[in-house]
């Protein structure tokens, strides 16, 4: 189950991931302004907010897919603001995508093996065939197996069922051995009963991996998150425990649409 009360750790060690004053705008459209955020080691945080609040943008900024106009990003104590996306991944900051961003004509096994090989530094090795990298293949298969994809891993990605593709999204991220995992609506488009299963798989991840996930279903958020961050209009509205958030009048306002900033 989700480890509640992990938040107590953040006073001891530096947060796994944190930002200071992140700003980003496209022309006159402000998508992030002054975002201060910290994800403690081993935490399970949820990021919520109405459509267009800037949740995915925040993930894009932190993983380097967008450049912030101002502000700094830290992974542990190390500043990563100017690193390229793949360099951040190498340091353990990994994301998944809301819309499946997979390799349609690779089999699931090939796709995860690709990620494992890149992590192990074999990505540029061109003389020996894949079967020569037994450990990488075993590891890839192990990840797929643990996500219940073991029997399907020889199928081309595009032939997998949608729910399996969502799992493959996570498998690809796990293959990079993340310390911080940012999940952008991991259950997007998955039927309700399956999405709980998916989150069970997520909460079963190793304790040392810090997780931030975007999710719209509040039942799931309350069940799996130790703390919740609410974003509106490109900035953080409020952060707190599930019960604090549930009781917060500002959050109700946002979600009941009285004062929609979306």
């Amino acid at each position: 189950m989700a480890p509640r009360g992990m938040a107590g750790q953040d006073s001891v060690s530096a947060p796994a991931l944190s930002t200071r004053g992140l700003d980003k705008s496209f022309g006159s459209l402000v998508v992030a302004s002054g975002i201060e955020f910290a994800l403690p080691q081993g935490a399970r945080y949820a990021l919520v907010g109405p459509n267009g609040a800037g949740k995915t943008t925040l993930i894009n900024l932190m993983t380097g897919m967008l450049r912030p106009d101002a502000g700094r990003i830290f992974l542990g104590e190390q500043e990563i603001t100017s690193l390229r996306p793949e360099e951040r991944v190498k340091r353990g900051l990994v994301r998944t995508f809301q819309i499946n961003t997979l390799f349609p004509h690779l089999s699931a096994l090939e796709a995860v093996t690709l990620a494992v090989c890149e992590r192990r530094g074999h990505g540029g090795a061109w003389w020996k065939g894949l079967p020569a990298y037994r450990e990488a293949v075993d590891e890839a298969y192990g990840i797929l197996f643990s996500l219940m994809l073991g029997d399907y891993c020889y199928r081309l990605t595009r032939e997998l069922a949608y729910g399996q593709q969502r799992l493959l999204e996570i498998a690809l991220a796990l293959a990079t051995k993340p310390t911080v995992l940012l999940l952008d609506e991991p259950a997007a488009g998955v039927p309700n009963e399956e999405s709980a299963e998916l989150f069970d798989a997520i909460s079963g991840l190793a304790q040392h991996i810090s997780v931030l996930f975007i999710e719209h279903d509040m039942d799931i958020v309350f069940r799996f998150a130790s703390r919740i961050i609410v974003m509106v209009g490109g900035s953080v509205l409020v952060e707190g425990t599930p019960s604090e958030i549930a009781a917060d009048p500002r959050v109700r306002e946002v979600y009941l649409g009285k004062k929609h900033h979306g």
Partner: protein
Amino acid sequence: MTVLAPASAEPHRYLQAQIRWHGLEIAFWIAALLPFLLFKTYLVLASQIAITALFALSLDLILGYAGIVSLGHAAFFGLGSYTAGLLAKLGWGEPLTGLVIAAAVAGLVGYAASLVIARFRHLALIMITLGMGLLLHEAANSASWLTGGADGLQGVRMWPLLGYFRFDLYGVTAYTYSLIVLFLVFLASRRLIHSPFGLSLRGIRENPVRMPAIGAPSSAHIRKIYTISAAVAGTAGALLAQTTQTVSLEVLSFQRSADVLVMLILGGAGRLYGGILGAIIYLVARDQLSGFNPQYWYFWIGIMLIAVVMFLPNGVLGGLAWLRAAWRGKTA
């Protein structure tokens, strides 16, 4: 908690099966020897086909596997041709070293180009590769003191291969030489595409957005394969210069870039044999229809391109694979 996977041999068997030599492959390479016995009068054509197939293979490495479009690949072919031709003209007619030097020159320029190429995609990439090809063509055209300009490079004299085999009029040496080089490069390419690097290239083709998100340095991979591809294209160009003992400006033309693209698409990109098959179909058909005015030849090439794009998106080999899958589905 981590779920421990049971040790399974199945994934290894699956990957092993992908790289195993297929009976048809062996048959194909044996068939490549047939011209020596059956079509002795066609050895010159056969060596043209082997050279063009090598060129198509070089394009397949970047386009078929890494998904990098190029409308100017003749630039590297031409560089190889002129390097080998000029070396021989200046007095060094030894074929093998000439081949290596030509490949190195093309590879070096390919590396320089890749620094630019790796930063672009889509229309900008198409335009830049097209522009580079045109630029080199114009440069060779204006530098006629070096290249002979539109008249071509005259006075290329090759020494016998290995000091013994002369380049004869019937193309025996030419075809043997070209076929061996093609086969060796093919073997290396085959290893390459089944390696982790080859898998990463397919990853770039399948989804360039995801690659950085799994920690893969796409740009470095693209630079590497582009350099390799340029060197292979240069090798093909050098073979043409050495076996024909002339270099014409045409080796750098847009037409050559377009032709090789057509062959690769016709045969099936991303399939290793696609370019080879495409080169065979294309050059044999052109030879048989050579009574035609070349203008009309392009009419049919155009029709065929349209048809392939509309109805046969994976080329002849892709169509055959589809038929086979359909047949199996029926019988199973």
